């Protein structure tokens, strides 16, 4: 296997009695856009800071391109960071901010001017060289922070919720821009965010963290379609949880005994949770439902909510209420509350979770 850009081996970080990161093993591949996704306090920022050298692990090792970092300070690591609040130097111009890293590395004045100019063009901030940070908008400050890190041509760029302070429209535009930029410069990005949509939009792979642990690592599709734990399923997107009991190879029973196919190899009698995304549950008028191998269960619409681009229905299946989301597509049949329907899904769309 190719050498990973960043390797974390059993990395732990304790702050006094608080365990911020509990035994993390992770390889980040050279050139990928990797996101660490989790709620605040899950240890994602601490993990990033340990890669940057701004914190040191209590135990375990951080390797960057095969080199063990140990207690090497931040200024001697081949990585740069885009900070959450940008951390632009308020007393320096944009030019001085962006040139700071090169200056510290004793790069010649002419080369600094050249590289600063080029990176500012890259982030579309040409002409802003002599402004102070406070004279820039939030989006422009964000670009300066990005330019200030990128100009050093780091092997790995670390980004700590860099879009968090921007408004929604700008954030969405920047997401696509960042991804395009990453592909253009070919640098490994490690991106920390609590925004699942952001992670899904940009990442080649996502690592989901909670309580200092890495719960699952995979592509956005893998994470979304095959969540490994209940937390992952719930944190990313919307989902249904249905309590079931294993009833044989790849068959489970709902609370009322109804048998439903589900890929699971647990011994019969094991209590499990079946998770299925609302958009995978399709509603049909009785008699109009597809035949096997689709799973079909009759039920009644108990709630209908109109969201504009889609609608969701809560459907009482007897044993459990599941939510179904349907695109508001042309010609789509809309159901009314109280209407009898058949809920259907492909067996492969549902995932069995340990409780």
């Amino acid at each position, binding site marked *: 296997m190719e050498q990973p850009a960043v390797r974390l081996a059993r990395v732990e970080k304790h702050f006094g009695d608080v365990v911020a990161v509990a035994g993390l093993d992770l390889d980040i591949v050279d050139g990928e856009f990797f996101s660490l996704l989790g709620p605040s306090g899950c240890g994602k920022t601490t993990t990033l800071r340990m890669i*940057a*050298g*701004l914190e040191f692990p209590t135990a375990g090792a951080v390797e960057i391109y095969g080199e063990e970092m140990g207690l090497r*300070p*931040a*200024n*001697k690591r081949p*990585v*740069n*960071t885009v*900070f959450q*609040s940008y*951390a*632009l*130097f*308020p*007393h320096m111009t944009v030019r001085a901010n962006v040139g*700071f*890293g090169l200056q*510290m*590395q004793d790069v010649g004045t002419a080369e600094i001017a050249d590289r600063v100019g080029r990176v500012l063009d890259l982030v579309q901030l040409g002409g802003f060289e002599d402004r102070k940070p406070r004279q820039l908008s939030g989006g422009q400050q964000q670009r300066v922070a990005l330019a*200030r*890190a990128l100009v*050093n041509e780091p092997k790995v760029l670390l980004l700590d919720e860099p879009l968090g302070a921007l408004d929604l429209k700008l954030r969405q535009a920047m997401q696509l821009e960042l991804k395009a930029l990453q592909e253009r410069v070919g640098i490994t990005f490690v991106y920390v965010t609590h925004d699942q949509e952001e992670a899904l939009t940009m990442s080649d792979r996502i690592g989901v963290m909670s309580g200092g642990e890495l719960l699952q690592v995979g592509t956005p599709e893998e994470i979304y379609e095959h969540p490994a734990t209940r937390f992952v399923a719930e944190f990313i997107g919307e989902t249904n949880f249905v309590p079931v009991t294993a009833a044989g190879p790849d068959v489970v029973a709902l609370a009322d005994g109804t048998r439903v196919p589900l890929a699971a190899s647990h011994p019969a009698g094991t209590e499990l949770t079946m998770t299925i995304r609302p958009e995978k549950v399709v509603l049909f008028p009785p008699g109009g439902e597809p035949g096997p191998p689709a799973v079909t269960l009759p039920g009644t619409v108990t709630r209908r909510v109109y969201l504009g681009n889609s609608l969701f229905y809560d459907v009482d299946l007897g044993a459990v209420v599941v939510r179904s989301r349907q695109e508001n597509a042309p010609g789509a049949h809309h159901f009314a509350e109280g209407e009898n329907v058949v809920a259907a899904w492909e067996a492969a769309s549902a995932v069995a979770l340990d409780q």
Partner: protein
Amino acid sequence: MTAPGTPATPGLERAAARATARRGAWLAAPGALYLLLFFLLPMAILVVYSFGTRTATGRTLLEGWNLESYRRLFDDVVVRVMWRSLWLAVLTTVICLIVAYPFAYYIATRTARLRNLLLVLVMVPFWTNFLVRTYAWRVILGRNGPLSTVADWLGFADVRLLFTETAIVIGLVYGFLPFMVLPLYASIERMDWTLLDAGRDLYASGWQAFRRITLPLTMPGVIAGVILTFIPSFGAYVTPEILGGAQTTMLGSYIQSQYLGVSDWPFGSALSFVIMALMLVGTVIYFRTGARTV
């Protein structure tokens, strides 16, 4: 109907602005009155006296206006006293800055609880009268005081500190250190520490990060501390009077002796006024240049 965005009655808006300004004037009035009565007025009297004439018997005549007192500012004795005051004040300020900066940095980076305790400790000396504390130094630095005893032990025979410039600087540093610590603390405490993280992340060593980020950003504190230390040191009266000797006269004592010693009010007034004007000009220039670096 009025167009959207234009106030219905423009006159009302102006009246509101005037009312705000009036309220501001009332708030400033007590302070302004105080300064007028007890600063500007005495100052004016001082200026008037400085052009007066001293009689042979030491009386001041407010007639025969002349510039004699201002000419005498360039006498050797006066220039020597001025240089000495300037030198000792600069020395005091520099020592205070060197001692106070790391200390203020230390305080600012402690936990909130320890920080408050340390700040209280910085201010504890103020609970005792300045005169008493300065007299205490006389004991410490005196011929049979603890310092000379220790020096004796170490084999430095006959160390004489009291009534020297060294004693004055020790006393001034001791007295004015809190005035350096507090503004420095305030500006360091306000620092955004992620800026230092950013500096380190951008290849700055600890020292480079301090010089390029921390120091410039805490410059307002440095400037405030320098002004608060330098000005009282330059015009110090009590400390040089108690710890200094006849050979180490500073401006404060010299001015005092013009009034109470030789009864030369015009000259004392001229000296006071010129020094104050110089300090004012110096402070304004310092603030202007300082404001630009931040």
